[in-house]
């Protein structure tokens, strides 16, 4: 009786999932670098930083049913933390000799700030910065999450409140330009611990680092998904009360999922800053936050790999269409939102599972184990 059947056995990844991971790695580390020139590769690198956010959303929205419309906040906070460090390094006394206060970032000098504000000081140190990149957004998510989930705010209310937070933070950053660089953001970033990040070789290297971190985050997400915690998240999305009366503190689990998504987004934000060379409040606001949701939705909100492919696909389409038909792009994006909700609620992953995967299986003539037991038939209702 204790002999494990395929369903009660719980491997970290099924063979199919290992195959998917291998394909993803081949794509990121071999195919794309070989096929694309430096410029396009850097673009893909930028898209992949958004994939961190989409990955977080797959956990937090797809599995746990919490839709956050403020993921840009965490992406932005992570990016700003990194940008503050880079900016301080770029603002050495020699580089800023012409300023009235040398040694502080140029925008501070323009705004009559004469000494480095206290909250900038920790960002002189690289280790502290790396800690802050993950910690600051995660703590912020924890505070927001704790306040909301302990009081059982969820669903649409949560979505709207996160949206308001995104709006407030944007106004704050823009308004406090002496300390934040205002609407221009923090620009003209040059070196990371003495290493010039603007050169082509540096960009290529950063691309690979970015890819590596993304795969690491996929594995982390997979670990969560495969753990009992992952199943509790699904269970909560289904019947929150039942989970509560099975003796679980529902709020803590939601906070965890939200913080995890925030931490992923923050890593993405920091990598964005490194690869693109600046950070601005335009990533913190509502519009980018909602766009990032659509990446996850296109990919299939329950699919970790789907989130990454969704991000790549939407951004590729955006770049391509806006090069050839800028006027049509918004129509296309809008239609995409509607289509994915009305016709393909499972996104790319759903199409793959229903149409492509069975073909492959048949061709291989070998029964593949079911991919996941946790795919709902429709979308989570709140």
């Amino acid at each position: 009786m204790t002999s494990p059947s395929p369903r009660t056995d719980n491997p970290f990844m099924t063979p199919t999932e290992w195959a998917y991971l291998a394909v993803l790695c081949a794509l990121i580390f071999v195919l794309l670098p070989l096929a694309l020139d430096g410029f396009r590769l850097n673009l893909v690198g930028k898209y992949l930083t958004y994939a961190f956010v989409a990955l977080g959303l797959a956990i937090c929205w797809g599995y746990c049913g919490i839709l956050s419309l403020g993921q840009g906040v965490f992406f932005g906070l992570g990016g700003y933390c990194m940008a503050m460090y880079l900016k301080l390094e770029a603002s050495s006394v020699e580089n800023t000799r012409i300023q009235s206060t040398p040694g502080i970032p140029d925008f501070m000098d323009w705004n009559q700030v004469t000494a480095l504000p206290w909250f900038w000081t920790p960002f002189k140190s690289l280790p502290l910065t790396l800690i802050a990149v993950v910690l600051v957004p995660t703590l912020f998510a924890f505070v927001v999450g704790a306040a909301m989930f302990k009081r059982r705010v969820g669903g649409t209310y949560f979505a709207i409140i996160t949206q308001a937070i995104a709006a407030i933070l944007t106004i704050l950053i823009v308004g406090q330009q002496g300390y934040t660089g205002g609407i221009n953001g923090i620009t003209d970033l040059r070196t990371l611990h003495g290493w010039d990040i603007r050169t082509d070789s540096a960009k290529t290297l950063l691309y690979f680092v970015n890819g590596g971190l993304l795969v690491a985050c996929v594995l982390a997400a997979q670990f969560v998904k495969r753990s009992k915690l992952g199943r509790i998240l699904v269970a909560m999305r289904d019947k929150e009360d039942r989970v509560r009366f099975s003796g679980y503190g529902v709020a803590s689990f939601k906070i965890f999922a939200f913080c995890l998504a925030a931490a992923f987004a923050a890593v993405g934000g920091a990598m964005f800053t490194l690869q693109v060379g600046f950070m601005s409040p335009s990533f913190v606001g509502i519009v980018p936050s909602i766009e990032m949701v659509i990446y996850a939705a296109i990919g299939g909100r329950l699919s970790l790999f789907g989130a990454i492919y969704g991000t790549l696909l939407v951004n590729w389409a955006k770049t391509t269409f806006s090069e050839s038909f800028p006027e049509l792009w918004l129509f296309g994006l809008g239609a995409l939102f509607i289509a994915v909700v009305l016709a393909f609620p499972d996104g790319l992953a759903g199409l793959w599972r229903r149409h492509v995967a069975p073909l492959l299986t048949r061709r291989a003539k070998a029964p593949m184990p079911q991919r996941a037991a946790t795919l709902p038939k429709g979308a989570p209702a709140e």
Partner: protein
Amino acid sequence: MNAAILPGASAGQPDFLLAVEALTVSFDGFKAVNDVSFYVDPDEIRVIIGPNGAGKTTVLDLICGRTRATSGSIKYKGSELTKLSESAIVQAGVGRKFQTPSIYDDLSVFENLEISYPRGRSVWGALTFKRDAAVRDRIHEVAEMIFLKDHLSKRAEFLSHGQKQWLEIGMLLIQDPELLMLDEPVAGMSVAERKKTAELLHQIIKGRSVLVIEHDMKFVEDIAHRVTVLHQGKVLSEGSMERVKNDPKVVDVYLGH
């Protein structure tokens, strides 16, 4: 075993497992439960009956923390429940089955039971939870009891209504609560299912206290040690089934309208 983690548990064994005293809750001035008191002994099977809207389900909601009392107290093994969170109440040993089957449609039967297994209930615990032999054995054991051992890898949404009810009972069983609260466990079942369920209930209520809401009088007579009749949020009558059946107030309420 769970009593140890209860804050404020008295050292000596209390007389009652559950003591509900002067319990009142009001929604916008409407008192759904009004000054209700009753006591449940260890190993007692208590059935709450009463017409629709009498406040039966609300009483269960209050005990398990789903609804917060306006006033009054609920003591479980001598310590107060009204201030505890739902999960703490469950961890103290109170289990609850809902009226409509409340299971996780998107998970398999095995996973449904696994989630109810009383280990790894913290975030960290759930992350590091291992599906070891003890867990598997216990799940198989319970699955056999609830007639679902052949359906372990089936997604729960594909079960029949009766099977879903059993699954939920199984989920409670695996928690091993000292106080089990069942809200209409046989409602909506076919005759055959009902019979099987009664059998199952007889089996699982052994060695624990049970609080049941039920309309099926035959079933009630079958299992109840004592019966509490609620009417319009108040306790109308209490005692053995025989006594309650002959209480003129109860007859009035049930037959008088």
